[in-house]
């Protein structure tokens, strides 16, 4: 009974609410048959409005709380399952880490340290590669491309974003990575004096550099599609004003589009960074893992990411080993949390300007 009465009142009140919103926003001419709806007169909506607001309020709060519950449940699960490795006797846990790392680590921080290093380096490198290309593509799509090319590119970019990471991983491991050896070899031969590119380049190049390239290709569409939409929303007036003042097209972009889109670009790349930090299958398939703090991007077996390490080690791990791996997952969780926190800071600053 209560249900039907509610829905009937909602049915009456709905057009009113819609009318109010559209009236508040842009005051369109023909809001409805009833002239009062164009004004801010709510008198006729009163009976339904409060209960409806209450329902909407409750639903919204519930949705918000659900997010917190999910997050809390993840944290709780990670903490509970990781607990044995922190609480267990020293001798046992150090044996677990020794067996997981092939005798190279004996404590949790010793084990997780190189993994954190690898995760952050590979993700940051991927973002550095992807960011400029992605922004360039977005600029081209919004300001330079002709209509038909624009449509095609939009479609392709969105399609790229939808490809599952396993597909990228397979393609990368079997096709792209072996094919890039001549290029990496050339880089190490000519730029080898920079420690980052010190050779000899690994062959097949299943290295940090290759993994970063694959990740960059994976996260590029995310940044592109978001920045593209933001560029498209740059106020037309600003653009025209800049052009009227005699700015070239590039100056117009620099003066209007880039400052306007700044915080959006940052949050897009942080979203992409999140994907890069957590990417598992592609990294596992492409990267030859190692447990060192090495900056030699073109050499194999130097770094490994947390997510790929969990996936690789999980099947053969015993119960305490699983706890150890979940503890590294907890660290990854903290890293993504920190990244998001920093992103919020940056976007808030960018938005204020």
């Amino acid at each position, binding site marked *: 009974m209560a249900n039907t009465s509610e829905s009937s009142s909602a049915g009456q009140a709905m057009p009113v609410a819609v009318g109010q919103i559209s009236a508040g926003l842009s005051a369109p001419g023909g809001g409805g048959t009833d002239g009062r709806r164009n004004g801010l007169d709510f008198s006729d909506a009163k009976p339904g409005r409060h209960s409806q607001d209450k329902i909407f309020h409750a639903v919204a709060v519930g949705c918000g709380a659900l997010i917190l519950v999910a997050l809390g449940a993840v944290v709780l699960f990670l903490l509970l399952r990781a607990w044995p490795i922190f609480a267990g006797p020293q001798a046992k846990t150090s044996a677990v880490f020794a*067996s997981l790392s092939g005798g190279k680590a004996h404590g949790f921080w010793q084990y997780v340290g190189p993994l954190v290093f690898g995760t952050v380096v590979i993700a940051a490198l991927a973002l550095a590669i992807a960011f400029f290309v992605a922004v360039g593509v977005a600029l081209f799509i919004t300001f330079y491309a002709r209509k038909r090319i624009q449509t095609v590119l939009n479609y392709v970019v969105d399609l790229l974003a939808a490809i599952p990471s396993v597909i990228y991983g397979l393609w990368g491991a079997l096709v792209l990575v072996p094919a890039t050896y001549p290029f990496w070899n050339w880089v190490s031969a000519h730029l080898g004096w920079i420690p980052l590119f010190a050779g000899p380049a690994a062959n097949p190049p299943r290295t940090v550099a290759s993994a970063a390239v694959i990740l960059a290709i994976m996260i590029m569409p995310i940044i592109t599609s978001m920045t593209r939409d933001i560029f498209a929303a740059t106020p037309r007036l600003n653009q025209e004003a800049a052009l009227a003042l005699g700015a070239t097209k590039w100056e117009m972009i620099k003066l209007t589009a880039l400052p306007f889109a700044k915080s959006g670009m940052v949050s897009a790349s942080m979203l992409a960074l999140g994907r890069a930090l957590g990417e598992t299958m592609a990294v596992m398939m492409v990267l030859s893992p190692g447990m060192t703090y090495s900056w030699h991007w073109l050499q194999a077996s130097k770094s490994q990411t947390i997510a790929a390490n969990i996936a*690789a080690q999980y099947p053969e791990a015993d119960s305490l080993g699983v706890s150890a791996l979940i503890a590294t997952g907890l660290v990854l969780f903290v890293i993504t949390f920190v990244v998001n926190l920093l992103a919020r800071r940056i976007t808030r600053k960018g938005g204020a300007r």
Partner: protein
Amino acid sequence: MHSTKLKRLIAVVSSFAMMAALSACGDNTPVDSSSASKGKNSGISGEFHGAGASSQQGAVEAWIATYQNHNRNAKIAYNPSGSGAGVSTFLTGATAWAGTDAPLNDQQIEQSKTICKSGSAFDVPVYVSPIAVMFNLKGISGQGKHLNMDAAVIARIFDGKITQWNDEAIKAENPKVNLPATPITVVHRSDKSGTTNNFTSYLKAAAPNDWGFQPQENWPNEVGQAAKGTDGVVSSIGQADGTIGYADLAKAGTFGTVSVKVGADYVAPASDAAAKTVNASPLHAVPKGSKRVVVNVEYATTVAGDYPIVSSSYAVACPAYKDAKTGAFVRDWLSYVLSDSGQKVAADNTGSAALGGALTQKALKSVNTIQAK
């Protein structure tokens, strides 16, 4: 005209052949099942699960297929989740048996007392396979082609001390081969692996002066490249010139393999040579009354014709199960796996070494004591 006649002839002949084949099918089925019921079908029925080493997967699948031919009412599934996971699952009592590359440790044996009806779990070798050191070197590698190396050279290659294919040490053992100056890329496993454990055990036993690491399931140094799983290693080897790695012989495909120096001769990897090594190896000392049969593979063997890099994989079972039906199944199943026909099925399907002889007799003796009632 002529061609249509020919076509007609072909059509007629092939339809006859099909009919014959189909009728053969129809005739065979009842004969098969009746012979099965007369012979091996010991009334095993129900669903049974195993889990464990992925190295055994191919063999276990072949065993399941043939076993179910004779035991129509038994439904068997094997989850190749890995040795560690397999034994863990077994120790919760969720599976009838487990496959593992590493023999049980004391803690696991102690733990098994809670899930077995009486006594503690034991392991018997069921799957033995030669591990080949395989390489991809332009102009030199190829199916059935070998390079000669002794344990010291292999150890130094895999420890990054020999970095070129035309190194004097390799040349000295292969005087007739024109080795190029290609750099060597070592490929090893990135995940925990029984294969790595066996390979490092061999290096430690046969070249103690050149291999400073303890045998272990994780690759111990940072030399070369790491890849996930046997297939990852094989695909990495295939991707570049100058690579060398280790994997089950069955996966060698078109790569060249290393003939390992044993005694005074070089022995190419082969399943019968591997079986010979395992059969001649001493057994792990076990307390009196224990049913365990664990081989201490003689990696440093010098007997002519033995191939020393061998992986041995085990099946774990209880001497008595809380559910008698499970006991009857495991007893029947493992006897089949260890039988000559079972071992032959695995060898035909996976290139493993068919066991036999005293070792299998001992394992069968253990399996036959499993309580079936």
